[in-house]
């Protein structure tokens, strides 16, 4: 049995993980993976067919189930493509910041002293810094491709992991079994990987779930400013941003991607909540 789940938890809630978030996310992942293969071309534009409403409304056609945008592109196709981009981005950024944060947190918690101080100071700076300004500057310099965007989002997310991991490690440091391992001659790396890492898995997993949701929303904000994923393959946030001038007139341009976005975020958040309740509600607090 993993030491992480047993150690340090006096009380554990017996609420199981709900099914609907998992199912919903599975659906989205499926759509993201296979949707674009069966949907029409999201780039096919037709200026004569712009701003058509969804199929079940007057003026709508079955050819464009969810309607078209300002350039006549099929919204459903754009939506599936955007879902893919949003998910990929969220997962990549969350994983990236998790890796970075866990690494730094382990380092800080294990070695203590100046390294710890330095890393924690950096973490404070990252948490305090208004991301938007940094994002504008960096993304404007390097251009609007996927890689720098993921890098910037990663830069934004690691500190919270570092803090949580360091705190968890500090708790573990007090435990006798670690001293026993040291006395037995275990090297630093072995201790970190075999003993400390499993114990931080739980809180990191919970954080990660929330992070994905957060990254997806954040990218939306950057898209609003024109700094998110560039056309012609924008994220869900980007599609919403494109249609935001026509909230009333062409409501489908913002409502459908919006609903998808919200469902995605809510599902991740709900999953994160359930994971936390399941694993250990107390240990998750930072």
């Amino acid at each position, binding site marked *: 049995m993993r030491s992480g789940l047993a150690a340090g938890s006096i*009380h554990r809630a017996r609420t199981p993980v709900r099914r609907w978030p998992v199912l919903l996310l599975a659906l989205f992942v499926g759509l993201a993976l296979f949707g674009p293969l069966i949907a029409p071309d999201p780039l096919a534009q037709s200026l004569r067919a712009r701003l058509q409403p969804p199929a079940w409304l007057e003026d709508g056609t079955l050819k464009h189930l969810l309607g078209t945008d300002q350039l006549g592109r099929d919204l459903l196709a754009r939506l599936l493509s955007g879902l893919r981009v949003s998910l990929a981005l969220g997962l990549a950024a969350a994983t990236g910041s998790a890796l970075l944060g866990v690494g730094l947190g382990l380092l800080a918690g294990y070695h203590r002293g100046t390294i710890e101080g330095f890393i924690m*100071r950096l973490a*404070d700076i990252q948490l*305090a810094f208004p991301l938007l300004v940094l994002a504008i500057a960096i993304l404007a*310099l390097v251009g609007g491709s996927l890689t720098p965007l993921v890098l910037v989002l990663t830069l934004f997310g690691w500190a919270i992991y570092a803090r949580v991991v360091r705190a968890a490690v500090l708790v573990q440091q007090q435990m006798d079994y670690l001293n026993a391992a040291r006395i037995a001659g275990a090297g630093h790396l072995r201790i970190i990987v075999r003993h400390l890492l499993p114990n931080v898995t739980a809180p990191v997993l919970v954080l990660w779930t929330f992070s994905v949701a957060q990254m997806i929303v954040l990218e*939306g904000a950057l898209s609003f400013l024109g700094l998110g994923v560039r056309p012609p393959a924008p994220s869900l946030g980007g599609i919403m941003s494109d249609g*935001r001038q026509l909230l009333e007139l062409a409501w489908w341009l*913002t409502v459908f991607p919006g609903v998808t976005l*919200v469902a995605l975020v809510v599902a991740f958040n709900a999953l994160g909540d359930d994971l*936390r309740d399941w694993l250990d509600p107390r240990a998750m607090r930072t």
Partner: protein
Amino acid sequence: MTRLLVRRALELAITLIGIWTVLFFVIRLSGDPIALLMGPNASAEQIEAMRADLGLDRPLATQYLLELKRMATLDFGRSIRGGQRALDLACSRLAISLQLTASAMLLAVALAIPVGIAAAAWRERRWTRWLLGLTFLGQALPIFWTGPMLILLFAVTWQLLPVAGWQSLAHGVLPVITLASVLLAKLARMVRAEMLEVLGQDYIRTARSKGLPQNTILMVHGARNAMIPVITVMGTEFGQLVGAAVLTESIFAIPGLGDMLLNAALARDYPVVQAGVFVITLVVVGVNAMVDIAYTLIDPRVRHAIDA
């Protein structure tokens, strides 16, 4: 106590310089503000002249040291676009942003506590789940959708509130709600988790089948405990809120620091950007520090841990 204060002040200074340095290099390396200022429809000789005038033609390292020296005297130079003193511009806009952000924070806290407590105390009930879900909705919906939607409903259709600006209390309602929605879910979740912890201990002892605590003392105790994690994150959340405030100010045309920062960054008016970031960092780190100090005053155990 004094040691803590001194340490905090030192950390503040280091943080300020650190952020400022990052900003300096990134912005300087990222593009030419003068060309932007002139725009595509102006001539090219002026560009060279202005660049020399602002010392932008000197090597980067020289610029850095000179600027660092000036920053120490709180001289951030003048706005490239308008010529006003950068720090003056930033400070003139600070009050409004603080009002917006603080109000949003207060609203979020004021709503999060009852929602979180309810969600924990009546966790089996459907309505609490829906309530919590509503807060999730607020966080998930992008601000650039929530804001305009609220405007469309409350200002245009029902004519209950004004659309944009910051001239009266009525003007503040929609932007504050929009901004608070970003934070509400997170705080509510925290309160709920804390309350669950508190109630959990009670469950073991009293084994109530319905899970409906009648004990008001318990609720009060729970609420007080719930405040602790909320206060803890106030500092860092304040910083994130400031970022979200930039979007809010843009949508509602509120002349705050975030709006100024955004325009300045897009125009690469970096004296203004640096002054703005400096002020924001000061406020955020300052708030963080105050929160930490307050925290240690509340809980001596924490003070011990920090000093360890």
